[in-house]
């Protein structure tokens, strides 16, 4: 299976997840978008040594995945893209930051190790939160929420339209790659002699398609605006969801709750 086919499957899987029904799916997209942004903002704002304080932030994705009935492991597949880069940046911390910040029994732990772990946790948490958003919200809903936030119409329309065409062109590229490889067995990629023509042909055809697409849109009464009919409104539940979570995030950031909790027992 080549990269394009994998991407197509991912798109399909995301669509299926977003089409499910759960209390989280039923919330207004704007509330979910704002909560996600607030979550990521608060999560990355933790200091690099505040590992214990950061840990409590896991409660939002955990609660979200349970309420939306989405299995947590579905998002871990996506970590393959996020983690290498985060690791590449964080891996140097233990070597450069050797000051001992704590000792567990006889094992001393340096600041670099803590900051590396904190960085990894931030990476995983942020990914879980943004995956939760797209797994419970369709692209139409996200675009609607963006419009409510006064993001220019041209950007949201472009996003919607591009999203429609991404799967089509992925399919096209997938077929082209497959037929190319069938004719060039044992070859890893596109040979230098076909560098230009391979994608160039597709560009020519795509531009023709864009013209046809415009005509058909015009025939169906398109006047530069998409309509978002039947969108979920900001219900009382959505307001409550937003206010409670954002309030909790501020609380989690302002106080080191795990430490306070621990001091009750120690």
């Amino acid at each position, binding site marked *: 299976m080549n990269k*394009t086919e994998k991407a197509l499957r991912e798109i399909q899987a995301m669509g299926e997840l977003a089409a499910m029904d759960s209390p989280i799916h039923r919330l207004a997209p704007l509330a979910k978008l704002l909560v996600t942004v607030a979550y*990521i903002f608060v999560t*990355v*704002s933790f200091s690099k040594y*505040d*590992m*214990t304080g950061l*840990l409590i932030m*896991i409660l939002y994705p955990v*609660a979200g995945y*349970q309420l939306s009935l989405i299995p947590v492991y579905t998002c871990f597949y996506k970590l393959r893209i*996020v983690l290498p880069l*985060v690791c590449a*940046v*964080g891996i*140097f911390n233990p070597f*450069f930051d050797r000051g001992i910040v704590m000792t567990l029994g006889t094992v001393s732990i340096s*600041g670099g190790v*803590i900051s590396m772990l904190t*960085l990894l946790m931030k990476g995983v948490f942020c990914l879980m939160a*943004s995956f939760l958003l*797209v797994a419970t919200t369709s692209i139409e809903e996200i675009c609607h929420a963006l419009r409510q936030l006064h993001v*220019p119409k*041209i*950007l949201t329309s*472009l*996003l919607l*339209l*591009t*999203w*429609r*065409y*991404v799967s089509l*062109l992925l399919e*096209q*590229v997938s077929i082209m*790659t497959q037929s190319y490889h069938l004719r060039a067995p044992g070859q*890893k*990629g*596109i040979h*230098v002699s076909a560098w*230009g023509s391979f*994608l*160039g042909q*597709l*560009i*020519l055809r*795509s*531009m023709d398609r*864009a013209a046809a697409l415009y005509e058909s849109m015009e025939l169906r009464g398109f006047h*530069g605006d998409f309509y978002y009919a039947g969108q979920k409104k900001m219900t009382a539940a959505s307001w409550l969801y937003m206010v409670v979570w954002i309030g909790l995030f*501020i609380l989690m*950031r*302002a106080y080191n709750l*795990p*430490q306070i*909790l*621990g001091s009750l*027992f*120690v």
Partner: protein
Amino acid sequence: MHMADALLAPAVAATMYVASGSAAGVSIVNLRKEEATLKEDLKVKLPAMAVMSALVFAGQMVNYTIPGTGSSGHLCGGMMLTGVLGPYAGFLSMIVILAIQCLFFADGGLMALGANVWNMAFYGCFVGYFLIYRPIMQGKLFSAKGGSASVTKSAMRMRIVLASVLGCVLTLQLGALSVVLETSLSGITELPFGGFLVLMQPIHLAIGLIEGLITAAVLVFVYEARPQLLRDVDTAGAVEGKCSLKTTFVILALVVAVIGGGVSLLASGNPDGLEWSLFGNAEEGYSENMGLDEEAYGISSNLADSAASIQEKMAFLPDYAFSKDAENPMGTTVSGLVGSGIVAAFAILTCFIGGYFRKRKLAS
């Protein structure tokens, strides 16, 4: 080069959002102006922009074999979109591609989107177009001696190849530099600034060269087949020249490889020069003001200052990035660890209870 959320401090991420947002605003205004002057309706352009961005998105997944090596390269999206759609429409299309990559493929974070747009789309579309693509395409480079008005096809080809390669190399270098700056300003990595730079720049020089050549190949093909699709290409009176496509490629690849190789050697062999130029004083040693002190970088512009002041007012948790938290001990006591254990146990328990109820719901 897609940055994850964890690699940026909120202040840096917000500043980059402001910068990229302004660039997007300027693009929209200019697109509307183009619409008025060219009598070209924006809604006609919309499908073309959408199809092209979808194509670049899919096209970036194609592996191109690099002759003589076992590895493969990819297409450079920014330059390609700019060549076909122009800088403003190209920039908006790149924003959409990056948004889709971040939302649905976890390639780059939601909060890091502003920075990613800046690093990949801004340089590719604006710097690449206004500093490289347009001057080369509209200039007199490679044109016949004697100032004849008609441009040979081979001259146009040479220009396209040169513009694509130089554009990709420059934009990727600037992008890589921005990644290093943003990460260092965020205080995320302990890797010294100079070391990080030496790690990033040469590798992106190589990537830029290959991406540039692939992009050039595609754009030259489009030029051969339908020149009116490309921006700033003189289609009137083009006559066939002496130089074949293959020769053009070989000559330019050699020239760029020699120049690029030289720059790369300079960059990796003399990192102190780079540090010196960025920090102003090499003798002070970068380790002292490394990573956490914005002032020490000497990067100040009116835009950055005003963006930072807006950010300061807006941020509700001003405990980020440049604070001197390096000196603070972790502050973790036994109670912190115990509390963390309780939180972790609670999270795991929630998962189990949720799983139990889901199974029961499925069974019923």
